[in-house]
């Protein structure tokens, strides 16, 4: 009776067996069966070698962050600050882009593990005459798909607190923020919030393209 190896279950003849030599293409011998089993196994392993799971989502067009007069110490969280994404550039990490309606805008990793994320936002010059930017803040937060409209907990933040005029004498054009964070694979979801404060207050600050790149660092 043929045996199998303990780990990969490759077949081999045992001492009590009569060695079977291939008789025809439909009658494989023992060595052929073993060779084909190894071949299939190594091919399957090779096909699974995709490297570290990674995904990038991009938001195209503009996004107007409202309420620039919000108190900013501590920086508030509200769903209307959440930056929408509409494009999946690549995704081998099993991350689902949830509804991009206001109050949702979550990126849901469906597998648990430790993740590293980098978000960027392209910040154009504020063109409102006479207005000065006091503060711009970009944060990665952790929401939940169980209650998408619930406020999301702060994960990481990056800010610019230098005064800037309409002529953009600060030169800030791209803000970025990074984070290392565990996601549970069942409810935890990434979201990105961006906000600004100006003097005098303006109704909104319009930003351009934004991205979030998410790398999966562990398998559980």
């Amino acid at each position, binding site marked *: 009776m043929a045996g199998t190896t303990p780990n990969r279950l490759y077949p081999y003849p045992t001492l009590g067996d009569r060695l079977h030599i291939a008789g025809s293409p439909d009658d494989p011998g023992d060595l052929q069966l073993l060779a084909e089993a190894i071949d299939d196994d190594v091919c399957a*392993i090779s096909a699974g070698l995709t490297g570290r799971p990674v995904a990038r989502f991009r938001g195209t067009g503009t996004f107007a962050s409202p309420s620039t007069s919000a108190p900013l110490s501590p*920086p508030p969280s509200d769903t209307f600050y959440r930056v929408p994404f509409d494009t999946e550039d690549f995704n081998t990490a099993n991350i689902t882009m949830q509804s991009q309606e206001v109050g949702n805008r979550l990126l849901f990793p469906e597998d648990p593990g*430790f993740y590293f994320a980098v978000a960027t936002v392209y910040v154009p010059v504020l063109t409102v005459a006479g207005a000065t930017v006091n503060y711009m803040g970009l944060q990665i937060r952790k929401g939940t798909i169980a209650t998408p409209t619930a406020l999301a907990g702060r994960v990481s933040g990056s800010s610019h607190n230098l005064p800037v005029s309409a002529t953009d004498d600060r030169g800030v054009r791209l803000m970025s*923020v990074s984070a290392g964070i565990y996601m549970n694979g069942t409810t935890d979801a990434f979201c990105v919030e961006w906000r600004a404060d100006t003097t005098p207050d303006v109704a909104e600050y319009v930003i351009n393209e934004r991205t979030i790149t998410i790398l999966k*660092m562990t398998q559980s």
Partner: protein
Amino acid sequence: MPQNTPRGYTYPLYSDPANPQAQIEDFARDVDTDVAAQVARIAGALNRASAECRASANQAIAANTNVFATFAVEEYDNANMINLGVNNDRITFTETGIYLIHAEANFAPNGNATVGGREGIIVPNLLSGTDARQSLRGHITFDTELCVQLLYQVQTVGDFVRFQVRQSSGASLNISARSFSATKVAD
């Protein structure tokens, strides 16, 4: 006498006694052991040592003073790198290799007219000169948030990293929300 390939697969020579069943089994088991080890290695490469800790309670930072940020909650640790009960300001490496280290903090304003700067530095214990830092001008009324990243080669088990913060507003202020993580990316 049977020979072995460089990977350890045993095969008989022409001069060896014919015992094909045992020789095939021997070969199959050699390949099995080798492939199983490779599968484990592949899985391990995607499941590296990682750890993360956080805190949200205020920590006072005196002006013009280097202070190591402290942490209160261990969010993740698959390699025993964080032990907040012993040291609440560090991630201690339990394996050598190259790590992606990340630290971030929120500096609360103190209303002092002297705004000054806010700075965060990832400081390795060994291999001085390999730290990474980020500094920003602060604000009299708004929070300042900064994050720092470092790729660091751990050459000695037991080496550790800390997150040092500093501010120059002329008076004490607090850091509030903050986090610190490390994840191994290569041997």
